């Protein structure tokens, strides 16, 4: 019997719901909840993680992220301005840098700084300096591209109107163009902080003492404990989410805000 389009859509939706319910029931029936509880989300093991997971691991993750962001933003601003420079060699250097560090795994950069340079040149940066450079040089490449796009997204007419009102180049950039570019760049910049937070887990590779453990390393050491199961990694994951989910919400909030401003130009 022929069905109308609407009936067919209704049937299809019904099947999808039924499938979902079946899978959920199967999970509930088949899963060994006692084992899962003990080995994946064991409150006793979580309690063991405290307070170190906050006072050491979460704190260090935040510190590493902040250090990487400061270097990334500073270098990123310089690279973005170089990329927009009227002097061609500056543009080439910036392009080369950005393409290189966007194309190479961050892991490689960490290995180079943490092990390669000490082996090749026989000297070692301080732990925090290593992290700062490794996270910063990679983040800078992404941040530079966001900033460049933001500056270019401000319509040329804004600059021309400012100059027509007698503003100098610098004044027009500072008062009219850059504030608008920053609003455009805020969402991608927030996303960059999220990526940086996750990339800080690469610090895991470097040799370090307990006081320098960040969330991933702390979780990794945690699962070596007798009977700890997966729980320490789950706890670390939750800590990452505590940082990244609010940032994601913030980023979306910025996006709707800039949409409102953009509509008016």
């Amino acid at each position: 019997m022929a069905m109308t389009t609407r009936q067919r859509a209704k049937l299809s939706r019904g099947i999808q719901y039924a499938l979902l319910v079946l899978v959920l029931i199967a999970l509930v029936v088949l899963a060994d909840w006692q084992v899962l509880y003990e080995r994946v989300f064991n409150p006793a093991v979580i309690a063991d993680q405290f307070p170190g997971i906050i006072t050491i691991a979460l704190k260090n993750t935040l510190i590493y992220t902040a250090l990487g962001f400061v270097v990334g933003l500073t270098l990123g601003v310089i690279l973005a301005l170089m990329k927009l420079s009227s002097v061609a060699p500056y543009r080439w250097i910036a392009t080369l840098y950005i393409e290189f560090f966007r194309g190479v795994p961050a892991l490689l950069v960490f290995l180079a700084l943490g092990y390669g340079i000490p082996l090749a040149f026989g000297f070692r940066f301080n732990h925090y300096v290593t992290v700062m450079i490794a996270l910063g040089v990679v983040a800078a490449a992404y941040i530079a591209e966001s900033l460049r796009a933001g500056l270019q997204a401000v319509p040329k007419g804004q600059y021309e109107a400012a100059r027509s009102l007698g503003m100098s180049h610098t004044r027009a950039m500072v008062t009219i163009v850059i504030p608008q570019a920053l609003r455009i760049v805020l969402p991608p910049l927030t996303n960059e902080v999220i990526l940086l937070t996750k990339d800080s887990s690469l610090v895991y590779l470097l040799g370090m003492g307990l006081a320098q453990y960040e969330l991933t390393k702390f979780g990794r050491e945690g699962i070596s404990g007798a009977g700890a199961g997966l729980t320490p990694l789950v706890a670390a994951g939750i800590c990452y989410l505590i940082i990244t989910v609010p940032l994601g919400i913030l980023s979306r909030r910025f996006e709707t805000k800039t949409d409102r401003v953009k509509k008016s130009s």
Partner: protein
Amino acid sequence: MSTSATENTQASTPSETPAVSVRGLNKAYGDLEVLRGIDLTVNSGEVVCLIGPSGSGKSTLLRCLNLLEEPQSGDITVSGFDVTDPDIDVDAMRRNVGMVFQHFNLFPHLTVLENCTVSQIKVLKRSKSEAEQTAMTNLERVGLAEKAQQRPGQLSGGQQQRVAIARALSMNPDLMLFDEPTSALDPETVGDVLAIMRKLANEGMTMLVVTHEMSFARDVADRVVFMDGGVVVEEGPAREVIGSPKHERTQSFLSRVLNPTKVDTPE
């Protein structure tokens, strides 16, 4: 203080020095010659409309006057500044020349009032209260004083253009340049903007207007300049050029613009 000084010098030398004087202006983008030997004079207090088909170089000419475009050769004097002098203080010249753009170019991150005060404060170094007073006077002139605290995005196109006019006027310019100020507007808001420009003209503002509004040009302009292919084809009193054009190219342009439905030869 400095504004009163310029007013004094202007009063002592009335319309003898033209507000705008262009001699032999050439401008090219690569091989494309946009302006070829333009001569143009706008006297103080005069309203001149630039008309002509798109691509004729009207807007480029206007933009050369305040150096948004760099002319290749020729002599330009604008409100006493030698624009083609390489050592010109561009910012000082632009302070005296108001510009109104086709797409308004209001600053979306500032309120209507701040749009009108930012340059007064940052460039003319006026106090905030003085700048706001001047801005409010000019917003009243364009009938939008009650919108002062809103953002440009909350206004209609016609209202935005009126704010743009108030913003330019707040710098107390000697001369106003209008670059197709009504071309991007909804038809029903065009009238409001033209009414304000007409009022400005009646108040004695020196105006150079690139426009496709032929009735405005005919009724408000003292002179009309018809451009085509980068040259001035014909110029004269507004009613003569629009009412009884002498040049064949002016005639065909006007007949196409004034009777758009009667066009039967699509090139």
